[in-house]
């Protein structure tokens, strides 16, 4: 068991180590409110990272999630500003995300274009389209929209709870629903999947629609955290989630990986920045350290596969 999930365990170990160091060297990290805010901020990222994990396990990639996130955020914000209840604005954002995912999915699975370039193109198109339509204008939300109309703490708990429930549902789905196993099968060997009666192109299509919908949901979860919607929100989200997925042990060549690893990877990367502040290291090292963590993770993989081959 340890051997099969070696990567997940080592990331989890690194995370625990970081948390332990913080507990000793900077107990202030564990103060309630900042920690709660950190978790609430990362809750939407976790939702998108789950979708990204699926896409990558299925041997594709989606770098347009940041732009999708921005569009869904603005859509949700505008609807809320038009006095739509959140119960309707949120599903609308999810639907908008799913539509954008459908476009990606149709191009990748239907026309069999390489996903990296397709999503690069849609990323540019969505982002610029939004800027054109909105001219960088912020959307002001009505008062009752922030934190779902609850207090801040209650709202934050709600978000964290929602993200965790979704995460567990996804884990269960990937493990216990045959659709989830199909994603692994297609990423592992599309031809063998075809022989086993699975339709690989359809599975690919579905993962893109799903990541779109999840991005829409994440956007909704992000919108309620502030009184305004930034049309630039989601910038860099694609790289952040891909990094979490890669650090979490999902193989970029598809087939392998688990959502638990992604969870640990995301937390590890998310904790770097507050940890730096609490350990009195300049926060500007954050990105460099994140990059180093990504490289370390893949180098470890490379070395491991090399030694295994030699044995």
């Amino acid at each position: 068991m340890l051997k099969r999930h070696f990567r997940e365990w080592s990331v989890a170990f690194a995370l625990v180590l970081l948390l332990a160091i913080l507990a000793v060297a900077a107990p202030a990290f564990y103060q309630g409110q900042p920690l709660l805010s950190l978790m609430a901020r990362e809750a939407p990222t976790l939702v998108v990272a789950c979708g990204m994990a699926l896409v990558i396990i299925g041997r594709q990639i989606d770098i347009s999630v940041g732009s999708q996130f921005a569009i869904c955020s603005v859509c949700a914000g505008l609807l809320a500003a038009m006095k739509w209840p959140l119960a309707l604005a949120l599903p609308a954002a999810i639907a908008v995300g799913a539509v954008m995912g459908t476009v990606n999915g149709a191009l990748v699975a239907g026309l069999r274009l390489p996903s990296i370039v397709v999503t690069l193109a849609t990323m540019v198109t969505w982002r610029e389209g939004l800027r054109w339509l909105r001219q960088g204008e912020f959307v002001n939300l009505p008062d009752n929209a922030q934190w779902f109309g609850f207090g801040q703490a209650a709202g934050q708990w709600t978000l964290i709870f929602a993200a965790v429930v979704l995460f567990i549902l996804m884990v269960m789905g990937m493990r216990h629903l045959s659709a989830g196993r199909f994603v692994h099968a297609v990423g592992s060997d599309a031809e063998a999947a075809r022989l086993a009666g699975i339709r690989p192109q359809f599975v690919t299509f579905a993962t893109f629609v799903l990541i779109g919908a999840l991005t829409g949901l994440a956007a909704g979860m992000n919108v309620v955290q502030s009184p305004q919607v930034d049309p630039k929100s989601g910038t860099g989200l694609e790289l952040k989630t891909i990094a979490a997925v890669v650090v979490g042990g999902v193989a970029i060549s598809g087939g392998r990986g688990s959502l638990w690893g992604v969870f640990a990877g995301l937390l590890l990367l998310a904790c770097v920045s507050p940890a730096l502040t609490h350990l009195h290291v300049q926060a500007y090292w954050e990105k460099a350290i994140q990059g180093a963590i990504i490289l370390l993770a893949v180098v470890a993989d490379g070395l491991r596969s090399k030694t295994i081959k030699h044995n």
Partner: protein
Amino acid sequence: MPPLLQLANVTKSFGAVRALKGVSFDLQGGEIHALLGENGAGKSTLIKVVTGAHQPDGGTITVAGQLVPHLSPASAHKLGIACIYQQPALFPDLTVAENIGLRLEPATATRTVNWPGRRDRAAKLLKRIGADIDPDTEVRNLSMPEQQLVEIACALGAEARIVIMDEPTASLTQKEQHLLFAVVRGLRDNGVGVIYISHRLEEIFALADRVTVLRDGESVGTSKTDDMTETSLIRLMVGREVSQIYPPAAGAPGEVALSLKNVSCGASGIKNVTLEVRAGEVVGLAGLVGAGRTELARVLFGLTPADAGEIALQGRAVVIASPAEAIAKGMAYVPEDRRRHGIILEMPIAANVTMAIQRRIFPGAWLRPKAERQLTLEYIRDLAVKTYGPEAPGGSLSGGNQQKVSLARWLATKPKVLILDEPTQGVDVGAKSEIHKLIRRLAREGMAVLMISSDLPEILGMSDRIAVMRGGTITAMLPGKSDAHEVMSAALGQAEKGVAAC
């Protein structure tokens, strides 16, 4: 009762190559029917037609009396046809239990997965075939024979009516083999029809009820195994008249150009190969698929460098760690899989021809299109490549002409030792005899040629001496004028019958 499976006049071509020229075949329930033939006789194509992986160009397929107009992998599965390929088609990243599950459970996306059930079934199936494999291991961690056992478990679990086994014992140990035989007999006793492909005659006699021999895409006879002897089977397999006229052999060979002493390579299963090839000599390297011939060539060419033994060129000991070094030392290797390794399909003929001599023909790395064109035209003329010009992409050529371009690339290096791997596979008859003449001419000009071939008449007609490989090492050296029977017997390991190869 109608036969379980009946093929009538099935034909299939790939481009210019006619892989099946009207094969008829039938399989009864409760029968083990062996399919026998040399490499390239059409067995694999036939199997793929039955499993729905290839659509036949003509002929009919009948399953249990029902005409099947269109057979796809999915419908074959539904009809109860299961196949165990030589190279297992499993998902490397998933566990054994899951692989079996995906194969056996319906492919509906909304079902929940019953993990304990999957594991139980996997454990039971594996136990039935006596395989000691943990259902929770990932397939990528299994050895090739273990993966094959998983495939067999899948077929068993599918309760297939027709089970096809493509050389299932090629990599099994003797103990695993005995278990497998018991499983296969068990299937037969339950009314399943088994198509069993193997090169090992002793297995066929031990197991099969009937045997059909394929040769050059045609069935040359089906008979009860009891009516046959090993000799008569081998005669059927190789019995073709040597229809082509092979060019005459050269005179006396010269100095030793390439000599191997106890060369081994752990990674590719080459063990203690000792061999000499003289200048002006064609040495044929015969053996079955998996005997290690291509692996030996890869070792010599530095693709998987040797880890023990001595290689000497022109009497001087050398170490060859990369293809570039091999080329610099006067070696050339025309690989077997020309579409993947031999030429680059998307690049022009000219670029393909000069690819291994870039340093020499392009001093200072500057391309010289004129010189390149000139040289390529020379080879196009010399080897009679049919094309509209040196700028034509390699992929636009027919198989034979692709092979000529691949040859031209290596002749351009002016090698002293030329290794040919299946030089005429998938090549039409005309180009074949041209290539044969060329090989002879090269030898006459003083090149040492090591020719791997699965085409027995070619080996017999072209070689001055014949080395036979089996299990990663050379088991026999025969003179060039040996007869087919002798070579086949050595390749099949008949002389040492009863000794299991692992």
